[in-house]
């Protein structure tokens, strides 16, 4: 379970390797907020290697999205598997995030 940050032109891409759950959500939050503090404004979180997000993980995504928007930036998500897509739809979280099917489309959408 790890978070890798890479910069693609103007977008900071965060790769989540493993589950996003109550035990590691603060680490993701801190890493993204540190980049926001440094002046980054465009963030794409790639869930290609993530099978499960618990309710605390969802909470962090919403909280990050709000904080980034307050600074005039944007948070987008990519590569949610079918279960996660269903979860976002069932909880209406798909209305809060722009979700791309692939990393490339996510990057293009900014």
């Amino acid at each position: 379970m790890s978070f890798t940050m890479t910069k693609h032109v103007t977008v900071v891409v965060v790769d989540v390797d493993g589950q996003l759950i109550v035990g590691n959500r603060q680490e993701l939050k801190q890493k993204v907020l540190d980049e926001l503090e440094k002046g980054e404004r465009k963030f794409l979180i790639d869930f290609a290697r993530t099978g499960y997000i618990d309710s605390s993980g969802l909470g962090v995504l919403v909280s990050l999205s709000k904080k980034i928007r307050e600074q005039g930036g944007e948070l987008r998500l990519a590569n949610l598997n079918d279960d996660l897509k269903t979860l976002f739809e069932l909880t209406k979280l798909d209305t809060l995030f722009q979700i791309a099917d692939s990393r490339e489309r996510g990057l293009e959408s900014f």
Partner: protein
Amino acid sequence: MREQALGSVLTAFYDATRCPATVWTQREVGQPLTLLGAVPHAAPPATPDLDALPRGPESISLDGPAGRLMVARVPPAKRAWLVLGPDPTTGLPLANLFRFLAPVVSQMLQTALEVEHAAAELAERYEEINLLYTISEILGRTVRLEEAAATILKEISETVGARKASILVHDRVTDTLQVVAALGIRPEDAPPIAVDDPCSVSAQVFRSRHATIVDGAEMACDAETPYRNGAMLSVPIMWTSPDGGEPLGVVNLSDRRSGQPFSAGDQKLVAAIATQIGTAIQNTRLVRASLAQQRLVQEMHLAHDLQMKLLPTGAVVAPDAEVSARVMPADSVGGDFYNLFRLSLNSTGAMIGDVSGHGYQAALIMALAMSAAAIHAQASTDPTETLAALQTSLRDELATTEMFISAFYGVVDRRLGELRYANTGHPHAFVIGGDGDIQRLPALDPPLGMVTTAPHGSSRPWATNRDLLLLFTDGVSDARNRADARLGEQAVLDMVTTNRTRPTTEIVERVFAMLSQHMGDVPPRDDLTLVVLRS
């Protein structure tokens, strides 16, 4: 004993030589001479003049009332003398008789002296063993370290003869040595000693973990003045764990009654006691930690009971509806909840909520949501209005804690044959029809706390006494088994559909039995909540 053996030797000597002989000793300087043995027994000898007795190894002649006497000191005793004479009638020369008897008496005195030393040493050891035994008993009897420490100090100081004694224990927070027991020192005069104090003997012993004996003038230190008067013996209190030794404090002794310096023997004795005190300190800490842990567990049980009492039973909505519900928190307390309301005639409200996360923080938000929902549900039969009011009530708490609530609230109106509902991010809400048809009641808005816009509402027909409202949290469908496989939403739906005509209590029982079988001994990661309503 000594006198008896000596008497036998002297008698045998007299029988053989007919030469009178006496052995005198002075037990302590300044005391008069004591007779250890004399032959012949008939005539008690006159006590010789102490000043006339020789101090060196050579024999001297003395003139006694009955003739010439020969006197010499008998080694190894410093103050024992053999007196022979007057010359025997047998004509044997006194000097020859002296050369014969002196080594025998000397050997006897030496043996007696060794026995005396051994007896004294044994007595001393006995005192020490007795002290160790007493201390073991004190420590075994009590849990309160301070009480035990005071008694132990009294025992040690009496044995070692010290008027000032103290036990100092390391305080990790302030990094100082603090007095837990003291003798010969007023508690208000015994300040804590900083572990890094450069001149304090106690601090140095604590740091180096080695016992030290300092003489009167050595290492005088202001912080330590109350603890000592002259020489001081300071021994570390160690706790030996499998990971190595750890210093816990020091034992200090000073102001010796005899004025004598402390010996290596004293140090050894106090070190043995210090080890026992170390074990006692560690045991006390473990006992305290265990008591604190027990208290915490009790408080968690209490919190769990309180939280469960907040949840209503199906009786509150009977007879309009037949409802069965159960919550199983992952921790002692959790963030899942349900609520049931008997509204206007023939209308029943059922709510399920899942506060993000679990544990105390989630439980507090849950309690807040429960009470706010109870107030708002009574004000309106429109689920949208109730959830909107709940959102307003909880907005600040949810914003500051960065938590949110997925909630479903449905109102079944038997009279109109209608189910009205609002769903803010709750994924598992269904109506199971009498024919087994499953209808999901999807979320119409994101969870409470994520957005500030008012929730939407929807409605659908309700078949009285046939339709089932099924609500559960993701803890149920996400429950894992040993192979980390989820139970899945479909398994829950199948179980409820199969048993849809049974009493709701039985349906809930069967779902939880399935959960229990699926999870085995794997503890739940999330709270599990299930509500089944028929109306």
